[in-house]
């Protein structure tokens, strides 16, 4: 029994994204950011997007391309401090930004990916981060309700994929990628290397194939994936 082949070309996969879509992007800084998929999204020009990503990258990279091109309506993120354009657009009211503590962002995404509705935590109690969130009693303790955060599409960057969609990530490029792969209706993975099934040993898979819908083999990596010269 062969496993399904999910390889796809990039333009076709990204063309399924409509205006107004909620899109999750992998990456913490440069590592793990799906720059090629983002570049294709810029080329196609879908607008009014909600972008869910740990950070807003830096000037001239990834999320910044989408911001510059006016495609982003809303950003759900933990930190935008390295992207002056994101800070300016937020302050000017050109995009709305929802800040979520990093680990809570990760869990809210995973929560959707695990098919749950929300979770209760004590993170942020006594700070502005918990303001306005419903309170839930668990035993004799009180926590705040954090809601599951899903998306229409997840754009993932993998070091290695097989054609069924099993993924491996490299070093700190793993970050949010396995979580967003679980949490979207459609998960599109770009991979530096795509191998036949069997090319990743069963114990070595980071993201199992059932979570992945399309697999796209990257040609030679553009420079933006390289070491940042600051």
């Amino acid at each position: 029994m062969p496993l399904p082949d999910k390889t796809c070309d990039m333009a076709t996969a990204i063309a399924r994204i409509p205006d107004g879509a909620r899109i999750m992007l992998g990456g913490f800084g440069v590592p793990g950011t799906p720059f090629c998929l983002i570049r294709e999204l810029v080329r196609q020009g879908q607008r009014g997007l909600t972008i869910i990503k740990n950070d807003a990258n830096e000037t001239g990279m990834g999320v910044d391309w989408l911001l510059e091109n006016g495609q982003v309506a809303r950003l759900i993120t933990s930190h935008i401090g390295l992207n002056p354009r994101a800070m300016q657009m937020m302050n000017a009211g050109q995009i709305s930004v929802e800040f979520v503590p990093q680990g809570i962002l990760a869990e809210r995404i995973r929560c959707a990916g695990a098919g749950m509705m929300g979770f209760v935590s004590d993170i942020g109690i006594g700070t502005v981060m918990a303001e306005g969130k419903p309170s839930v009693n668990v035993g004799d303790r009180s926590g705040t309700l954090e809601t599951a955060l899903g998306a229409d599409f997840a754009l993932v960057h993998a070091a290695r994929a097989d054609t069924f969609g099993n993924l491996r990530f490299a070093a700190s490029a793993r970050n949010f990628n396995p979580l967003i792969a679980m949490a979207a209706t459609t998960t599109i993975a770009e991979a530096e290397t795509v191998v036949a099934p069997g090319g990743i040993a069963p114990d070595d898979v980071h993201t199992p194939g059932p979570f992945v819908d399309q697999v796209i083999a990257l040609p030679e990596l553009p420079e933006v994936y390289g070491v940042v010269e600051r």
Partner: protein
Amino acid sequence: MSLNARERMLRRAARDISAGMTVNLGIGLPTQVLKYVPADLAVCLHSENGIAGVGPVRDRAHADRNLIDAGGAYVSPLPGTSYFDSAVSFAIVRSGRLDLTLLGAFEVAANGDLANWIIPGRLTPGAGGAIELAQKARKVAVITTHTDKHGCPKIVARCSLPLTAPGCVQRIFTDMAVCDVTPDGLRLTELAEGVTVAQVIAATGAPLIVPQTPLPRF
């Protein structure tokens, strides 16, 4: 149930497994369906103990002591198989990544209610993963003999046993018929070779909607 009727039931159920699906097969009859899935069909079998891409069962002599499916059978990997922990395994189930689950039943009701995990006072083993499979697979089908060994209907108007999940079943495969749960009630959709509509009605514990047009045979 003749061997022939059983085989036809299994073969019919197998036809609902189509290319590209991720599928979970319950212990017993559901697992038997595999024999009738074409060997070249691209399908991913999920096992709730943490496998995607479950391969053929192995005999004891060739078994890997670390590789069983959720029913305890020693299975094998395929090219592209992955292993993961139990939380990830049920994330696949609950987030809707399971296209189909085929389950056994103690009772299945005309409204899609399923009871397949507890017989109070007699069998209380715990539900294992049945509740989440029944509630969260995109499509839930039951495969069962039409009546139990005493000849009593397994398809009933209302379940008398505690439910695994309410309203979850969409299709029922038996040795006599295929029935679909619809908003209007249980519809007789296909008939096994040599079985009459009257026989199905007599063996079913719930009202059946019977189309006026000739029914497909399997």
